[in-house]
């Protein structure tokens, strides 16, 4: 600001005429707004403060709030007026003074603020009280200790019982904010009495107050389902409020509390039905709010698809919708697509694919592909729609279509390959890496049906080094596939690509993959074929699912920024404020797993469930071992599971898994045996490569050295008294993937025992002796013999009670004896029980939440790594680990011999000996046995 201007303003501010003064202050504020520095006028402006003109006073206050911090000493000049104003007979002036004082962040002023604030909190006028309530939050932000020392928090708590609804609402807002920075303070001591007060105020306060109260209610956890229901009943009327934020906050409370309601309750169904119409109504709000609503609906549809399953039409895109609304609607359309509505959806998507906005069109084309994969009946129509779109020759449409067609090939092999010719025609127009990679994958995968596959691939090879990594990797794999399919004509080509990948590239991923192929091909082409051309796992129907724990957390944040970003608050909020993780309440009665009538049924339910594989990106292991192909959207490496197993076995010493053995030993021999035939001469890098492979194995095993599985000590199963002198004690163990029953026979009788035989009754998991009982006969008196009996799981199945009960009959020359024993269910955990991360995610979501059981594991002093290590010894595999603050969450998978998958989440808090275990399984009756195993393994 020019000096002259300041000088003139100064003169005007000190003028005697009130009007002139006021105009001058206005000018000062105008300069302040545009960012000019007018702090030099501080004393002159403050001098105008003592006026009976409210408007002028407010302007001066505005100035003060802006500059007090830079002029703390002079700001003191204002204190007197503030204190005086706080005593003014006019409540508007009292409130104004206390409101403004709280905004002046100068320590000395804050000291003076305490007394007036205390009075204002108990003012007779509600307007003053509601302003004072917010002022406590302001003061807390400046000096939290002072607020506590002065006892303002208690006064604030008292205001929750105020007779005026707006005072209550502001007090709730202030307390909620203060509570966020004191996570454990129990400041917002929500109990049924306060909840009742809040619900009463909810009916009476302003729309904004209702939002504060609803957001606060959402933090409460009702004691039981009845309380939960009664709160829901009082919150549902809010769904008809004109203010969308009130509606969304009410939806949040309902979505959260609904978790606690039993699903068979009539009210549960009523509530579900009540939620749909208001959500649809949100879509007729202004576009910005529609966007917020759609982002939230995206979460709600993932959490509870049943709510909106019949509302597909409202998500149809309108021609004039802003692009951000269009893209979100499209996302939800794909999620809601089902056999019932697929025809309509496809017709819509086809329309969208001709629109102008490139991103939108791409997404629409991709959506058509997703529909084909999701709804089998529609696949044919989708493919022909995509072909029509390819005919348009619009470059980005063609490329997008090719990317999705590749996924369709994966999902429905040998069905639509007739379109390959059309795709090949467009080879030249592809300039995006993803589309090029997809096309190359198609050529490689169907090399035997494409006559000129070699020429096509060769044409890509010319510019190999200019391609992106994605395309290079794909090209490498495709040519190797081609070679394996047509070895005679393509030898030169494969040599060329291998040397390009291994010698001329500085990309470690590419080089490693090149070397692995090279060795595979040079040592054992049959194995190479098995690895490279292995059958691929199915791809999943759903994409972009949010991880279940994150989804649950986001449901607790409906309506807020977190729900718009689909990220937890900690990802975008600085400091400690508001970043505590919220969780959905557990359903009443979880913990006791419900008895299901028949395990057999449950088992078949599991095996019927389609295997789901979702593309994984950024999975290091996947990337490294992805021998097949890697366009990140579509598939998962076909071999890793066996590779991984081999790797683990190598380190564990037990080489027995068939495929694993084959390929791992193969690779090791090539590494240890120095440069194998056909390796480039300059490969002095062999040790380095070996190291690299070692790293791979480390990854595969999760941890370098795995602890063995826990074997409980032998116990006496059959006392001698009951068996005419024969005592049998025993235990179970799983060694190298084979279940063993370790038995000790002791002869406590006087005569020799011979002719031992053993038989099992039908049992829950079909355990049966794999061979005859080998007892060195005869067993003389007082002699003990140890026998290890291998067991198979192919015997007859019958559900036992308890589930892990085993009835055994042992015969000898004297008699037949019966006893029963219980085996730890960990016996049945198989070695390939490590689930892919994405599959894990999808499965976790897929299993209904009533199948989830929660347990406490007490007195376990292991940290998460040690626990994970220990559990892995018993084939409980850690799929992923997430650390939140001091809490580690291990996501683990277990597969039983009969194919049942168990998914578990283990939460371990540093320094807390008690951990929480959540188990999800389609056969929930197994959960508690799994829990027993966890306890057994972790404690020993």
């Amino acid at each position, binding site marked *: 600001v020019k000096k002259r201007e300041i000088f003139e303003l100064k003169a005007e501010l000190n003028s005697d005429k009130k009007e002139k003064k006021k105009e001058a202050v*206005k000018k000062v504020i105008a300069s302040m*707004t545009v*960012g000019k520095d007018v702090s030099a006028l501080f004393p002159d402006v403050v001098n105008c403060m003592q006026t009976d003109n*409210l408007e002028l006073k*407010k302007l001066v*206050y505005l100035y003060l709030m802006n500059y007090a911090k830079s002029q703390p000493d002079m700001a003191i000049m204002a204190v007197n007026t503030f204190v005086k104003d706080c005593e003014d*007979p*006019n*409540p*508007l002036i009292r409130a104004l003074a206390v*409101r403004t004082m*709280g*905004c002046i*962040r100068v320590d000395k002023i804050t000291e003076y603020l305490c007394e007036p604030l205390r009075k204002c909190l108990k003012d007779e*006028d*509600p*307007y*003053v009280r509601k302003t004072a309530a*917010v*002022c406590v939050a302001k003061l807390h*932000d400046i000096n939290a200790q002072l607020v506590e020392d002065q006892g303002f928090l208690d006064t604030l708590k008292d205001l929750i019982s105020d007779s005026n*609804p*707006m005072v209550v609402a*502001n007090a709730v807002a202030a307390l909620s904010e203060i509570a966020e920075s004191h996570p454990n303070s129990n400041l917002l001591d929500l109990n049924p009495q306060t909840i009742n007060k809040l619900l009463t105020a909810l*009916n*009476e306060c*302003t*729309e*904004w107050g209702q939002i504060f109260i609803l*957001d606060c209610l959402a933090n409460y956890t009702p004691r039981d389902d009845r309380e939960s229901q009664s709160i829901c009943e*009082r919150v*549902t009327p809010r769904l*008809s409020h*004109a*203010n*969308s*934020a009130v*509606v969304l*906050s009410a939806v949040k409370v309902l979505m959260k509390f609904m978790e606690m309601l039993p699903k068979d309750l009539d009210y549960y169904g009523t509530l579900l039905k009540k939620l749909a*119409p208001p959500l649809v*109504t949100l879509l007729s709000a202004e576009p*910005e*709010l529609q*966007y*917020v609503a759609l982002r939230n609906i995206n979460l709600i549809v993932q959490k509870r698809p049943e709510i909106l399953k019949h509302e597909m*039409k409202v998500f149809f895109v309108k*021609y004039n919708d802003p692009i951000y609304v269009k893209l979100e609607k499209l996302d939800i359309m794909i999620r809601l697509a089902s056999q019932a509505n697929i025809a309509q959806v496809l017709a819509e998507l086809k*329309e969208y694919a*001709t629109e102008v906005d490139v991103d939108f069109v791409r997404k629409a084309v991709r959506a058509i592909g997703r529909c084909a994969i999701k709804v089998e009946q529609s696949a044919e129509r989708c493919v022909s729609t995509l072909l029509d779109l390819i005919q*348009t020759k*619009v470059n980005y449409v063609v490329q997008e279509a090719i990317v999705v067609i590749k996924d369709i090939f994966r999902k429905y092999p040998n069905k639509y390959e007739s379109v390959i010719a059309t795709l090949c025609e467009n080879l030249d127009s592809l300039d995006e890496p993803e589309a090029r990679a997809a096309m190359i994958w198609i050529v490689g995968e169907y090399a035997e049906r494409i006559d000129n596959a070699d020429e096509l691939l060769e044409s890509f090879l010319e510019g190999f080094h200019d391609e992106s990594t994605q395309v290079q990797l794909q090209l490498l794999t495709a040519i190797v596939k081609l070679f394996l399919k047509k070895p005679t004509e393509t030898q030169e080509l494969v040599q060329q690509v291998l040397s390009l990948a291994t010698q001329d590239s500085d990309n470690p991923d590419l080089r490693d993959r090149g070397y692995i192929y090279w060795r595979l091909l040079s040592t054992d082409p049959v194995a190479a074929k098995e690895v490279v051309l292995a059958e691929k796992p199915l791809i999943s129907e759903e994409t972009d699912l949010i991880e279940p724990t994150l989804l649950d957390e986001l449901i607790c*944040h409906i*309506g*807020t*920024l977190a729900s*718009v*970003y689909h990220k937890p608050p900690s990802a*975008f909020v600085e400091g400690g*404020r*508001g970043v505590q993780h919220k969780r959905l309440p557990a359903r009443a009665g979880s913990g006791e797993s419900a008895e299901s009538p028949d395990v057999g049924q449950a088992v078949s339910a599991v095996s019927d469930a389609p295997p789901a594989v979702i593309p994984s990106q950024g999975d290091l292991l996947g990337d490294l071992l992805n021998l097949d192909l890697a366009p990140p959207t579509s598939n998962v490496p076909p071999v890793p599971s066996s590779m991984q197993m081999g790797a683990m076995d190598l380190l564990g010493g037990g080489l027995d898994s068939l495929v694993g053995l084959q390929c791992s030993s193969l690779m090791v021999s090539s590494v240890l045996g120095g440069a194998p035939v056909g390796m480039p001469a300059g490969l002095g890098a062999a040790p380095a490569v070996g190291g690299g492979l070692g790293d791979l194995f480390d990854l595969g095993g999760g941890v370098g050295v795995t602890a063995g599985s826990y074997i409980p000590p032998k116990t006496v199963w059959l006392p001698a008294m009951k068996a005419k002198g024969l005592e049998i004690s025993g235990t179970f163990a799983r060694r190298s993937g084979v279940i063993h029953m370790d038995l000790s026979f002791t002869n406590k009788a006087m005569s020799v025992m011979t002719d031992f035989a053993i038989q099992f009754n039908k049992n829950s998991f079909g355990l049966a002796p794999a061979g005859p009982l080998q007892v060195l006969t005869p067993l003389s008196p007082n002699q003990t013999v140890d026998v290890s009996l291998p067991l198979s799981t192919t015997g007859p199945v019958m559900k036992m009670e308890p589930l892990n009960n085993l009835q055994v009959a042992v015969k000898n020359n004297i008699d037949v004896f019966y006893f029963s024993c219980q085996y730890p269910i960990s016996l049945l955990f198989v070695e390939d029980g490590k689930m892919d991360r994405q599959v894990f995610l999808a499965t976790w979501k897929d299993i209904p939440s009533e199948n989830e059981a929660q347990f406490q594991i007490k007195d376990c002093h292991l940290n998460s790594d040690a626990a994970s290590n220990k559990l892995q010894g018993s084939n409980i595999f850690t799929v992923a680990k997430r650390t939140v603050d001091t809490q580690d969450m291990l996501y683990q998978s277990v597969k039983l011999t009969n194919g049942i998958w168990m998914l578990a989440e283990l939460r371990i808090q540093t320094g807390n000996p008690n951990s929480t275990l959540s188990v999800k399984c389609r056969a929930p009756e197994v959960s508690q046995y799994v829990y027993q195993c966890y306890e057994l393994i972790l404690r020993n």
Partner: protein
Amino acid sequence: MIGGLFIYNHKGEVLISRVYRDDIGRNAVDAFRVNVIHARQQVRSPVTNIARTSFFHVKRSNIWLAAVTKQNVNAAMVFEFLYKMCDVMTAYFGKISEENIKNNFVLIYELLDEILDFGYPQNSETGALKTFITQQGIKSQLQTKEEQSQITSQVTGQIGWRREGIKYRRNELFLDVLESVNLLMSPQGQVLSAHVSGRVVMKSYLSGMPECKFGMNDKIVIDKQGKGGTTDEAGKSELGGSSGKQSIAIDDCTFHQCVRLSKFDSERSISFIPPDGEYELMRYRTTKDIILPFRVIPLVREVGRTKLEVKVVIKSNFKPSLLAQKIEVRIPTPLNTSGVQVICMKGKAKYKASENAIVWKIKRMAGMKESQISAEIELLPTNDKKKWARPPISMNFEVPFAPSGLKVRYLKVFEPKLNYSDHDVIKWVRYIGRSGIYETRC
């Protein structure tokens, strides 16, 4: 909560800047300007995160309103607040324009100080605000103590939207049922989606603190009454005039904050103490049995590569005694159109090159009539591979009935303290149906 609120003109110059929280610095003002207003690309989201600071914006004509925060705020609330802010400003000084904002900046600061405290929205009902934010230079001493406490109790009270002691010589109220009917139809005449979004707007000039009760032909209410056999209420005070036998299924409705929601939830009755003057009582949405006032039948034929023949027939589908007004049919034309010849039976049609459309306007049209337009469109040959997207044909119109079938059954007024009864109140009801997005694909 909201950390700051900025208003910019189209160039990105700050007109208003009010910071509520310490974590928002002056650089936030510039960050939004640089990253959003001056951004080269079209805005992709109304919420932007720049360096851990979130910006919410709405645009009114060429004015940008931005709310800033660093916390996990209630996003829906922030947008609702921004809209409310626009409403309040419009109520005070009319259209939101650069000039009006500059001329009223002192008032805007005063309002911002009042309706947002530490980033928490406070009472923002214009009715209440106007009682004490006046820009008249009120001197605090001039208000009596009674007046003051009346203001504060209204601002904080249960009925924050109405002040005590309102008096009219003539008690009068106007009800407008305003509907916009939305349609998306396939070229073959199949309804792809159709819904009515309606509003009941009320202008009330009533004395005292009147209790009102509003009734319409809501299917749920009618069915309930039918069962109970008490139809006296329905028969007695009919306002609509025409036969209100038929009831309509309302998908969902939302109400002004004056309506007692818990009462609606339990009894489905709409009772309230109305604000003074004009306000929106309710919004609703229906999707069943909608009367589609017009049917558009398109016929587009491509004659070679340089010519298009378009024929569009519109049929009106309502009582012949009623008249539709302001009818406009918009037929999109390809970008490479070089010339258009139009013939229409009724109204006027013009090719508007700047809008890439033929606009056909008809002033009035009675029910059960039909009219048609045919056009020949000459095209320039292009080497553009991309096919013309054929945007849908859209229509605008206004009809004097409610396409949803909604009928007002009664609006009763009770004011026990003053001596006027329901019969003394003069009531007016009007139905207007307008086209929302009314499109037929071709």
